[in-house]
Structures are given as structure tokens and as C-alpha cells.
């Protein structure tokens, strides 16, 4: 991994860290806990999500949320792997980690465009 590329990955890391810190907890609470447990009517929630995600602005919002958070996560996982003794395998680890974030980002684009 050339040293010159590091600033780019760290900038994605900090942008993703801020986006995740501000936005993720409420998404987990709403879509992973409140809606499944029926705190909000699942049917009304589904209709509202359909209406919201059909709007281009929501798609852009979700694209930013998913892509930046994916890159933030793999950056952390990459450095944790280095720090737990896999320092000799820096290049393959970096390629696998960022490759997975890229796959996640492309999948997000396909999902959002199909709605």
C-alpha cells in the first residue's frame, strides 16, 4: 500500500465515523427493534419507507450513509488485523477490506435503483 494513498482512506474513515455516529443508532432502533416489535405499525412503516425511499433525495442520503459507513468499518477492521499480528499481509488485507466495502457500495446502488 503506497503511503500517498493513506490520506484518502483516513478521510473516508473520518467522514464515515461522523456519519455513523450521528445517524446509525436511530436507524438500528427504528428498523431493527421498534418496527419488528410493533412499537410502530409494521404496515404503516412499510408504506412510509416505500414512499420515502422512492424519492431521489432519500436514495442519495442512504447511498452516503451506507458507502461511507462501509469504508469506515473496513478501515477499522484492516487496522485491527494489522494490530493483532497480521502485519506481514498488509497488501492482501487492504485489498480484501476495501474490496468488500466497494462490493457493499455497488450492492447499495443496485438495491436503491431497483426501488
Amino acid at each position, binding site marked *: 500500500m503506497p503511503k500517498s494513498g493513506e490520506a484518502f482512506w483516513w478521510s473516508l474513515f473520518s467522514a464515515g465515523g461522523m456519519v455513523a455516529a450521528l445517524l446509525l443508532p436511530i436507524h438500528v432502533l427504528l428498523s431493527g*427493534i421498534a418496527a419488528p416489535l410493533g412499537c410502530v405499525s409494521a404496515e404503516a412503516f*412499510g408504506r412510509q419507507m416505500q414512499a420515502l425511499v422512492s424519492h431521489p433525495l432519500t436514495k442519495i442520503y442512504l447511498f452516503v450513509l451506507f458507502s461511507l459507513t462501509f469504508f469506515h468499518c473496513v478501515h477499522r477492521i484492516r487496522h485491527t488485523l494489522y494490530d493483532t499480528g497480521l502485519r506481514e499481509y498488509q497488501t492482501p488485507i487492504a485489498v480484501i477490506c476495501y474490496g468488500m466495502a466497494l462490493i457493499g457500495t455497488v450492492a447499495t446502488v443496485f438495491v436503491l435503483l431497483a426501488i
Partner: protein
Amino acid sequence: MREPYRRPMSSTTWWLSKRIYVLFMLRELTSVLIAAFLVVYLIQLAQLGQGAEAYTAFVERLASPGWIIFHLLVLIAALYHSITWFNLTPQVIVLRWGEEQVPPVFIAGSHYVAWLAVSVAIVWIVVGN
């Protein structure tokens, strides 16, 4: 020339030696849970491509105890990330107001206020209308 002294240390388990290292490692591991959540959330959103009914059916399946426990763990991880992230902001952002430095508490505090405002706004957009 003499070799510099290096304290013998395991390269895989060094972080178990001190509480603060364990907390650091826990914070790093929150990213694994958060990435797993994003994948599940993306599959959930993909159901909207088949219509609102498919989405509702998927959400109702997430009511099983295993999924609720998963999402509770993700919520704890996400909150841990948010709190440690906002608490670090005063070390990254140093603001001056004239001659005075803006107190670190104010910088972290403004992030907490923004977090609350954004969360309330999202609840209002998704549920309140």
C-alpha cells in the same frame, strides 16, 4: 551498535494486558457488528423493490428473539461508537473565539445536541408524518 530494548509482547493478545487496551479493541470490534447490520439493513431495504408488503413481511420476521438480540447488540455497538467518537471531537477540532479557546466540553456538547436533533428529525420523518 546495540539493539534497542523491546519488551517481549505477544503480537496477537497484547491488548488483553490492560483494561484500556481491551476497551480500545472493543471499540474497534463495534465496526464488525455495524458492518453486519448494514448488510441486514440493505437486504431489508431491497424488499422494497418487491413492494411494501414484501418489506413488511421481512420486518415481521425480524421479531424473532435471535434477531432482536442481534439488533440490541448492534444498538449497543452503535451507541458505543457514537459516544467515543463525540468524546474525541475536542481533540480533533480546536476552535478559537478571539483570544479564548472554545472549551472542549462545548465542542463535544454541540455534537451531542446535533445527534439528538438529527435522531428526532429522522423519527419524525419516518414515523411522525
